[in-house]
Every structure is written in C-alpha cells, then in structure tokens.
C-alpha cells in the first residue's frame, strides 16, 4: 500500500488554479523529490499531502484511508512535516523545540524513549551545541536544522520536507539529505521539495516535475531531468551533464545563450 496517494487533486485560490488534477503516489522505502519552477504548486501539493489544505476536488489518502478520517494525533504519529518557515512566538531553547516533536507520543510506551530519540536527532543534525540557546536567536540554517531534528524526533514513517536544505551550507545540505535517504532505506516514505536539481538528482529515487499545477513528468531523475524538458519548464536554457568521475547527473543553467530572462522581459 502507498504511504500517501492523491487522485485528481485540484485546487484554486480564487480564480488562480494552483493544482490541476494531480495524481501522485508516495511509496515507502523511497525518496520522492517535488521539483519545478516558482509557483508551480510544490509547497501547495505538500500542504495538501499534510492535510493543511483541503483540495477543491480529488482525494488524498494516508495509508489507504482518506485524510479527513484521521484523528490529528494519530496522524501525527504517522507523518511529520517540515515547513519552510521556522518561527517561534516565545524563546524556547532549541532542545525544547526538538522535544516538541515527541508530543504525539505522550502517554504511550514510546514516551520512554524521548531522551534518547531527542539526543539522537540533535546529534545527526549537528545542533547539540545549540541545545540551550533560544530558538529565536539561531541563524536561519541553525533554525532549519533544529526544525529538522524536531521532525526526526517525531519518529514517523512518512516525512514531508519543504525545502529542508534552504539556508544550509553545502555540508549540512548533504547531511540532511543523507539522513532523509537513510530514513527511506529504513522503510520510510520521504517527500522532499527541492530547488537544487543536482541535489534532487543525487538524493532521490523518483522525481515529480510540477509545472502550472500539473505533474508534467515523473520517474527516475535520469528519465525526468533531460535538457529539453527542463529548459521548457524553467523557461531558461538548461544543460544536463554526467559527472566525469562519479557518473552523477549535474543540472546547470546554460549561460552561453544570450537570451536570459531579464533581456527577454
């Protein structure tokens, strides 16, 4: 059974269509990357998967049951969500923020593992030394990593990550995606919204390319990331190369062409 399934999900904000008949399968043991230009509907699709936004039409199922049939607390033990914004109203220390990820497990046997899980999550995201600092005073990248630690501490089999690498340095980008990969290897279903296509190519099993609210292409990175398709979707000339030593896909803008967007605009 799929971890998450959408069928015919359609959504508009006012007269602006945001998602148009999206069919998507999120499978276990797999990292699925949602990519696409700004405003293509990636974050909205993630919000629909998380149950934050109810689509105008179509169904979203979590473990085979429609989202609206789930209780919020039970759902919180099945899936965790990393949002793009990391804001907090009161100066909770970073360790307390990570511990908030354990809230859905209160009163259950898993609660006994809280300390160990929190410490482990903080260690993998390299935020151990920030434990006592107020979350609100951390840098953007530190906030992102602390929030990722909170999501890991939730110990769910489904992870929905909205730009987890935003504001992270290259080392922490790799570490975060490696951890997402490891979760998938351990049986989790991971959905990750990414802007960096080379990162998506390196760390995902499957990519879904969104364009104008539709899934334009879906498949392995090698199948989806072709120069003509990406150039069309991103409205910018794009090259797809193979790394000479590792054989990885490298997606780069083609800067030789004089027609940049500024000039055509």
């Amino acid at each position: 059974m799929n971890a998450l399934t959408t069928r015919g999900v359609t959504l508009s904000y006012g007269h602006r269509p945001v998602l148009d008949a999206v069919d998507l399968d999120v499978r276990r043991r797999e990292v699925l990357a949602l990519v696409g230009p700004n405003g293509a509907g990636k974050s909205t699709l993630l919000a629909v998967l998380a149950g934050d936004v109810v689509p105008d039409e179509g169904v979203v199922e979590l473990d085979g049951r429609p989202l609206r049939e789930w209780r919020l607390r039970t759902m919180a033990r099945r899936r965790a969500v990393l949002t793009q914004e990391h804001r907090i109203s009161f100066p909770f220390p970073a360790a307390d923020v990570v511990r908030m990820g354990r809230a859905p497990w209160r009163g259950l046997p898993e609660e006994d593992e809280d300390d160990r899980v929190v410490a482990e999550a903080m260690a993998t995201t390299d935020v151990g030394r920030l434990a006592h600092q107020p979350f609100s005073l951390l840098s953007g990248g530190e906030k992102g990593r602390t929030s990722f630690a909170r999501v890991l501490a939730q110990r769910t089999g489904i992870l929905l990550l909205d730009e987890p690498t935003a504001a992270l340095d290259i080392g922490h980008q790799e570490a975060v995606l490696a951890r997402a990969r490891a979760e998938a290897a351990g049986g989790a279903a991971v959905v990750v919204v990414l802007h960096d296509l080379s990162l998506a190519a390196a760390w995902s099993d499957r990519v879904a390319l969104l364009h104008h609210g539709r899934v334009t292409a879906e498949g392995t990175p090698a199948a989806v990331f072709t120069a003509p398709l990406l150039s069309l979707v991103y409205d910018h000339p794009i090259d797809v190369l193979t790394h000479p030593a590792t054989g990885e896909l490298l997606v780069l803008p083609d800067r030789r062409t004089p027609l940049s967007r500024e000039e055509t605009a």
Partner: protein
Amino acid sequence: MTAVLPAVAVAPAVPVTDGRRRRRIALLYAGLVLGLVATTLVAGGSGQLQIPLDEILGSIAHRVGLDVGPMPTHPRGEYTLWNVRFSRIAMAVVVGASLAVAGAAMQGVFGNPLAEPSVVGISSGAAVAAGAAIVFGLRFAGDWSIPVCAFLGGLVTTLLVYALSRSDGRTEVVTLVLTGIAVNAVSSALLALLMFLGDTQARESIVFWQLGSLNGSRWSYVLVVAPLAAVGIAVALACARSLDLLALGERSARHLGVNVEALRIILIVVVALLTAAAVSFCGIVAFVGLVVPHLVRMVTGPGHRTLLIASALAGALVLICADTVARTAVAYTDLPLGMLTSLVGGPFFFWLLRRTRRTAGGWA
C-alpha cells in the same frame, strides 16, 4: 523505524533533562508559596486596626480547632481579621491569579507577548456588560448575575479582538495595540452612556469599576468568583502542552496533533471566564496579566505548564502586596487598586513594546 546514521560527526549526547532549570523552578514555587503566606500574615495585621502576628496566628489556630496562642485583644479584632481582611486577601488571590493566568493564556493563543485582557479591551468589555447589569437592575441569576454578564461581555470582546487582530495565524503588535485602542474607545463610550443613563448609585458603582478596587470584598463574593477562577485556571493548565506546541505556529502545531481550532475556542472562553472572575466585583485592574507572566518567563523560561502555575501564584502575591499598599499608604484612605497597577504597568508595557520592536526589527 531504524535509525541509520549518515556520515556526520555525532556530537556527544545532549544533557536534555536540565537539572538546574528544575531546581530553579522548585525554588521559585517554594519562594512564591512562602511569600503568599508571609504577605497574608502581614496584610492581615496591617491597617487602621493593627493586629500583632501572634494574635493572628492564635486566631487562625483557634479557627482550625487548636487551643493555642492568644486571640486578638481588640474587641473588633477577630471580626476585622476574618470578615474584612482575610476575605479581601482571598479576593486578591482569586483576582491576581485569574488575571495573571488570563494574560499568560492570551499571550499563548495570540502568539504575542503583549496580549493582555486590559490592553486589548477585554476587561473594559466585561465591565460594560457588568455595568449594564447594574444600571438596568438585572438580577436574573441572583448573586451570579453580574459575573454572568461580565463573562458574556468578556467573551464577545475576546472573540471580536481575536477576529479583528489576526491575519495569517498570528497577531502583529501594531494590529493588536490598535485593536485594543479601538475596543477600549468603544467600551469607554458605552460605559459613559451607562453612567449617563444610570442613577447616582449606579454611577458610583461604575466609577468604582473603572478605578478597580478590592474594597468591600465579602466572603459571599469570593465564593462566587473562586469557582470561576478555579475552572478557568484548571482548563488553562490542561492546555499547557498544546500552548507550547502552538508557539511553533498553527501549521506545525497541527502537524504535531494539536486541534488548533478547538484549542483556540477553549482558551478564548477561558480568558473571558478568568477576566469575568476578576472584573465582576473588583473592576478593572490593569496590566497584572502583562507584567506577571513576563517576569515569570524570565525565571522559568517559556514552557506553559510552569509559566501558568507560577503566574497564578505570583499574580496572587502581587495583588495582595498592591492591595495592602492601596489601603495603607495613605491613612484612612483606600486608594484605587487599578490606578496603582496601571501606574506600574503602563511604563512596563511601554518598555516591553520598545524591546519587542527592537528584537522583532520593526513594529511587526
């Protein structure tokens, strides 16, 4: 789920349970309880009729059935102690705890450390409804009529402020303060109208409200508002963990299993209930809900369980002290309590506003 560690350096395990913080919180609780006992004894003894400490202790001992210690020597000592002072102190405890918890709960729901019942006009909204009950002689529920009206007035005002001041799941400082100005303006106009309509006696009661005072607190009044306060505080405490999660924002709180819509409605009712408990017989005592939770947060950190308990204790303590000052500072005069708290709270609010502006990098 297996925890496969990727190739990152694993930092040494974090000391997640913070022993020092726990000790500090335990010390704070102990200090506040001791403070409450001490101020109760001091406040019980001071006033126009001075009662020495040993006589107070003796009187308490006799009430609980222990035949030790001296009784108050003054002929009216025993009566004054139990029917004037202690009832007033009990009222101060109820009102102080209610206001402080209402403030802390409101700050949690609004996600804004400047939210407070009197700042945003909930206290005056409740006072308008209570004033209407007096002027129009509403006695539909006996002694409970005024508290019921105050609760409904507070509830309507809280809902109004909430609907007006929020956008995208949070309340910006500017919007909150401006909403407060608007709501307070309308409330003052309505109170003025009520004074215009009412007779001399009703007018006096309304003026007394606006000033706020614990003068004339009787046990029967305490028995009316204490259950309201107890229910409100208990429900707020039950929501403490959800309030912590709400600090992450509505979306993240929901992802962690919090039913944000239900939580909001419950806490709005709680804030109205607690404000009503405070306002019904004592009028508008401003800024307690702002100053007390803020000071407590400095000691305990922002966790709501500790914050709410400590705020209730500290609010009670602050109000006993303030009320004792109000009735003893000038001989034979009972200064308005609301005036005193505003004198201290107003500048504090300003300081907090400046600080929030600085840390938030603007008025947002």
